[in-house]
């Protein structure tokens, strides 16, 4: 405390320097300001004059006061003033800071870190050695300078697990013998070994405990029942204590929205009734939404336990059913999909429709019942989907058997090649009896399923013998012919049942085995896949793991975990909460097991417990030093004022510049507002005054024409500096090409490309059609090529006769400007554009051509002077006037094309549309 203020100093002896201030005062008084040298012819009259009073030129008193303040502030700043210094009176020995560092500390971790930092700094000021131990990731106790700990504090993060009893035992045995005080940053959760550690620490000195006031929340389990997601949320409670009801916590369901972006899909508040540590929250979400949930999260308390990851449990598999034979209505039992639908509907979401409709929904399984080859594009799409983990399940049928597809070479969407025709067994014209199924191999996913005796196969398609065939068979008939074959493709599988999905060819779809087989093929989600006996002998690879804050991190570098351990072991560095994968199965290990209870610590009465609260120890040295700097700056000005040197022309210029600066930006804004309020045609400033003026006058002439003749009423055209100005406001940019024009910068090109992509149009004008045809033949043409090289321009072609520009307002055949060259280049029409019967025009580009290139010097033809007269002569006599008129008409058509797109193109189809509608 200094003068009753909550103020301390890190180096108080620096304040001794304040004694020197009066000396400084005297010295400063004695030293006059530096003289200023002036040229003055009248000096001849001054020679020999004496100053009256040698003291009269002393530094003015206010400057002295300011300089003394400056020095004073600097001295105080260097002395390290501190507001609210921590004054611990009972400081003895070193300081051990113990941090629980589990997930429960995550919600107020920043506060904890601040507090640890404050304690470390205080210990540094008290000159105490400090040791810092994170119990969740313990290291041996090591007392060292507190500054070393401060620098490493950023690396101190909460872990997703709780301290481990074994580690605590190691820590206790490794404690040094010396006496030290302990600060325990507790997270208020009871765990095994905490009390033992407390007693061990109390043997060395006093223990202070700091812990949050808030009880930790965690999601214990998530279950799905009758279309409702049930979340069990726990909070930590203390034994034998009353607990008030809590409110305000919110559970959020996170997942991917249909566009694939992560987001919150549902939100539900959580309320605990008084005294209870568990509450259940029901969340009703549509099945479609539910399938997309990736995890639940308590939004108000971010920690690893507040996150509950969802594996495949919640998901109902989405199965798309597609059959090739939809032409016969009413024969429901004969439908190839009937039995599949029956088998799937209780357990999965069934989608039906065309392949094109189904694929975007990204189903888990696509069933193709008796569908022969797909189109090439569809094959590619389906293949892509399979490689991303989809399961393509195919059934044979008469169509597949009859088609020539997949005979000569293996189709990518078939597991095996097929022989043509297939076979039928046990029919009237065949020798053998219908075949039974052979027992499943150990490698087969169906291994262990019992085969009903009454399943007979009467007809099937037959696989072509092949070196790879044996490895792909997962079920066969008693005579060894494959019944089910499977091929792995990327992350997914392609499975073919060599029989139909209905009872036409076999009794399989009628049996319970069919459902079990589908189940084993992971067509259906299994009810409880995490049963320990199921996991025996499996190894699970972490895919994503949670850190203490509940954020998902990549887990692929971590080692695998044995199946049973994954479910039952206690979390630690070797078993982190997260998503684990074994083959195609995904399993989530969450922080809290469903039966785990959270208990708060009951500290003994002799332990001092305080909340996490950071006393705002504030280092004021920066403030004082800044004050000294400001005073120094003021002193510069004041010294100049005193010596009469302040109002130089330079100062005035700087001040003037400072005053005018904001107005310039304002001017730019005004222009943007003005140009967006009306339609404004723009021309690119080339840097040559003459060219730019003509371009401006040209656009002005065109704007006038538009104003008089059309409903487009443009304002004054704008010159656009590509480097500085925003070009998105201008529907049309006229770009005259000039030899000496600078190449725009990368940023300008990025702007231009964005402009072209978003529907802008640039009219390039090489202005040399009188001497050159367009192309690289002329200098301006070559310049244009260089200018346009970085632009995102589609393939170009000479303007076709039926281009929409020829009829957007006027009907035009050619597009003269000041010159009458014919070749104007626009975006090339698509290859397959064809003339529709009865239509005079082809339907060309579905959009506005982004560039129009020519050399007819249109601006000169359009240009008008201030009185509205044409600026340049064009052609001769009447013909010239006609040419100017056509030039203006071209301009009008161009602007119409930019503003209305292919509207006119559509209009020409109106007769055809009416015709098709039968009118």
């Amino acid at each position, binding site marked *: 405390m200094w003068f009753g203020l909550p103020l301390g100093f890190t180096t108080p002896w620096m304040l001794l320097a304040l004694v020197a201030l009066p000396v400084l005062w005297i010295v400063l008084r004695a030293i*006059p*300001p*530096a*003289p*200023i*040298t*002036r*040229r*003055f*012819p*009248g*000096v*001849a*009259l*001054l*020679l020999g*004059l004496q*100053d*009256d*009073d*040698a003291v*009269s*030129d002393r530094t003015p008193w206010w400057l002295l006061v300011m300089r003394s303040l400056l020095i004073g502030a600097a001295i105080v700043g260097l002395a390290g003033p501190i507001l609210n210094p921590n004054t611990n009176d009972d400081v003895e020995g070193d300081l051990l800071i113990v941090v629980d560092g589990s997930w429960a500390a995550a919600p107020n971790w920043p506060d904890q870190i601040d507090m640890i930092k404050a304690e470390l700094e205080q210990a540094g000021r008290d000159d105490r050695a400090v040791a810092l131990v994170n119990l969740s990731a313990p290291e041996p106790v090591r007392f060292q300078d507190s500054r070393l700990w401060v620098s490493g504090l950023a690396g101190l993060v909460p872990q997703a697990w709780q301290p481990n009893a074994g580690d605590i035992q190691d820590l206790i045995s490794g404690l040094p013998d010396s006496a030290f005080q302990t600060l325990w940053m507790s997270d208020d959760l009871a765990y095994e070994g905490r009390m033992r550690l407390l007693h061990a620490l109390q043997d060395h000195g006093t223990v202070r405990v700091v812990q949050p006031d808030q009880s930790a929340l965690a999601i214990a389990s998530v279950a799905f029942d009758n279309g409702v997601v049930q979340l069990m949320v726990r909070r930590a409670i203390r034994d034998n204590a009353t607990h008030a009801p809590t409110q305000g916590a919110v559970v959020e369901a996170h997942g991917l929205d249909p566009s694939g972006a992560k987001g919150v899909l549902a939100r539900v508040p959580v309320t605990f009734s008084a005294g209870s540590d568990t509450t259940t929250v029901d969340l009703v979400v549509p099945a479609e939404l539910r399938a997309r949930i990736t995890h639940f999260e308590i939004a108000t308390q971010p920690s690893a336990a507040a996150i509950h990851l969802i594996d495949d449990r919640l998901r109902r598999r989405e199965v798309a059913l597609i059959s090739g034979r939809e032409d016969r209505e009413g024969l429901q039992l004969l439908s190839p999909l009937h039995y599949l639908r029956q088998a799937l509907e209780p357990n999965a979401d069934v989608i039906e429709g065309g392949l094109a409709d189904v694929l975007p929904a990204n189903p888990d399984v696509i069933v193709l019942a008796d569908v022969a080859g797909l189109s090439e594009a569809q094959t590619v799409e389906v293949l892509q989907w399979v490689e991303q983990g989809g399961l393509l399940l195919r059934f044979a049928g008469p169509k597949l058997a009859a088609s020539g597809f997949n005979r000569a070479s293996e189709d990518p969407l078939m597991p095996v090649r097929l022989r043509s025709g297939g076979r039928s067994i046990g029919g009237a014209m065949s020798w053998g009896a219908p075949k039974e199924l052979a027992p499943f191999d150990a490698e087969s996913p169906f291994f262990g399923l019992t085969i009903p005796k009454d399943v007979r196969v009467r007809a099937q398609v037959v696989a072509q013998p092949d070196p790879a065939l044996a490895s792909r068979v997962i079920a066969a008939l008693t005579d060894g012919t494959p019944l089910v074959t499977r091929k792995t493709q990327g992350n997914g599988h392609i499975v073919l049942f060599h029989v139909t999905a209905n009872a036409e060819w076999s009794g399989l779809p009628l049996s319970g085995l069919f459902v079990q087989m589908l189940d084993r093929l992971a067509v259906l989600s299994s009810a409880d896949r995490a049963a320990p006996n199921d996991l025996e002998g499996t190894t699970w690879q972490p895919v994503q793991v949670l850190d203490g804050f509940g954020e998902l991190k990549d887990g692929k570098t971590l080692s695998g975990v044995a199946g049973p351990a994954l479910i039952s072991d206690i979390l630690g560095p070797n078993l982190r909460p997260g998503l684990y994968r074994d083959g195609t199965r995904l399993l989530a290990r969450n922080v809290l097991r469903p039966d785990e209870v959270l208990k708060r610590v009951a500290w003994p009465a002799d332990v001092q417990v305080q909340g996490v609260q950071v006393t705002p120890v504030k280092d004021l040295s920066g403030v004082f030093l800044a004050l000294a700097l400001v005073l120094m700056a003021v002193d510069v000005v004041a010294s100049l004022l*005193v*010596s*009469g040197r302040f109002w130089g022309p330079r100062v005035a210029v700087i001040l003037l510049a400072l005053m005018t600066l904001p107005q310039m930006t304002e001017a730019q804004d005004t222009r943007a507002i003005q140009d967006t309020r009306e339609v404004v045609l723009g021309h690119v400033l080339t840097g040559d005054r003459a060219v730019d003026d003509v371009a401006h006058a040209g656009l002005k002439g065109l704007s006038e024409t538009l104003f008089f003749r059309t409903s487009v009423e443009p304002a004054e055209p704008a010159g656009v500096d590509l480097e500085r100005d925003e070009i998105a406001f201008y529907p049309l940019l006229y770009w005259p090409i000039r030899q000496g024009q600078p190449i725009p910068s990368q940023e300008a090109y990025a702007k231009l490309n964005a402009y072209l992509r978003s529907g802008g149009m640039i009219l390039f004008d090489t202005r040399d059609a009188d001497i050159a045809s367009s192309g690289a033949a002329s200098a301006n043409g070559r310049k244009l090529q260089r200018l346009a090289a970085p632009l995102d321009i589609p393939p170009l072609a000479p303007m076709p006769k039926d281009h929409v520009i020829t009829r957007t307002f006027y009907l035009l055949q050619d597009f003269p400007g000041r010159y009458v060259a014919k070749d104007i280049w626009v975006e090339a029409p698509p290859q397959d554009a064809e003339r529709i019967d009865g239509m005079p025009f082809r339907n060309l580009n579905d959009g506005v051509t982004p560039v129009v290139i020519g050399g007819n010097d249109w601006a000169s033809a359009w240009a008008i002077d201030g009185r509205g007269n044409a600026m340049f002569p064009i052609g001769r006599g009447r013909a010239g006037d006609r040419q100017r008129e056509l030039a203006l008409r071209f301009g009008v058509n161009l602007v119409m094309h930019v503003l209305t797109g292919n509207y006119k193109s559509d209009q020409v189809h109106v007769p055809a549309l009416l015709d098709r509608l039968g009118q």
Partner: protein
Amino acid sequence: MITAPDLRTRAETEASRLPPLLAWAEQLAGTVLLGEHGRRRAGLGDDFWQYRPVQPGDSLRLIDWRRSARSDMQFVRQREWQVAQSVLLWVDQSASMRFASDNKLGPKSDTARVLALALSILLIRAGERVGLMGQELPPRRGEGQILRLADAISHTSDEDFGTPETRAMLPHARALFVSDFMGNIDDVEASLLKAADRGVSGVLLQVLDPTEESFPFQGRTVFESMGARVQHETRKASDLREKYIERLSERRDRLRDMCRVTGWQFNSHLTSSPHQAALLWLYRAMEQR
């Protein structure tokens, strides 16, 4: 610094505001040439002076018959004796004249040159012969002389303070000295005495910058001459103001005294005040005897 053509333009502007100046011509021999300036006595010239009765010795040819016919006496028509005057200029071209406290006002030398040239133009238009003191540019008449004058007085010198040029002074000519007279006052006195000896009379015009009169300085200052050959340091310039102004007025008084003794005229002109007034005064001063 203004260029010669520019100087001429400005001088013409100044000159156009006054009627042609008819310098009073003193009696003069040697340099007698007919000019438009009547000598207020009968002699050779174009302008009518008086009729006087015929005296013995007048030839009959001289009798003005028209006048004589109106009375009984015979009269002779006399014309005024007209001679041209030589006017010599000295414009201080030293470094001290290049001083300007403010860019808008311009250096003192500009003012001095403009005034001197304006006067020259008026004099030359009136038929006088104007030249520079010294041997550089002897007095001549004619428009061409204006150009030569403008050129000659645009030269600059590196000296700190100027000393009036008195070499090759034509006897009984008129003279105009334009300077700030900040240099050695004894040199000026010597020049004036020499001029008086030769019967030359004229005008001293002191051109000063406003700061040279008001001395608006304060704080610790080192004053130095334009060529940095003379320095004076003060700790508090504001204290020197009164002493400076006192010394300046002393110097003016001395100059005025010298003028009175030698038959010259003295005036002081600030670069901030209108040049028209100064030219008007010069016009009158040159007119007076």
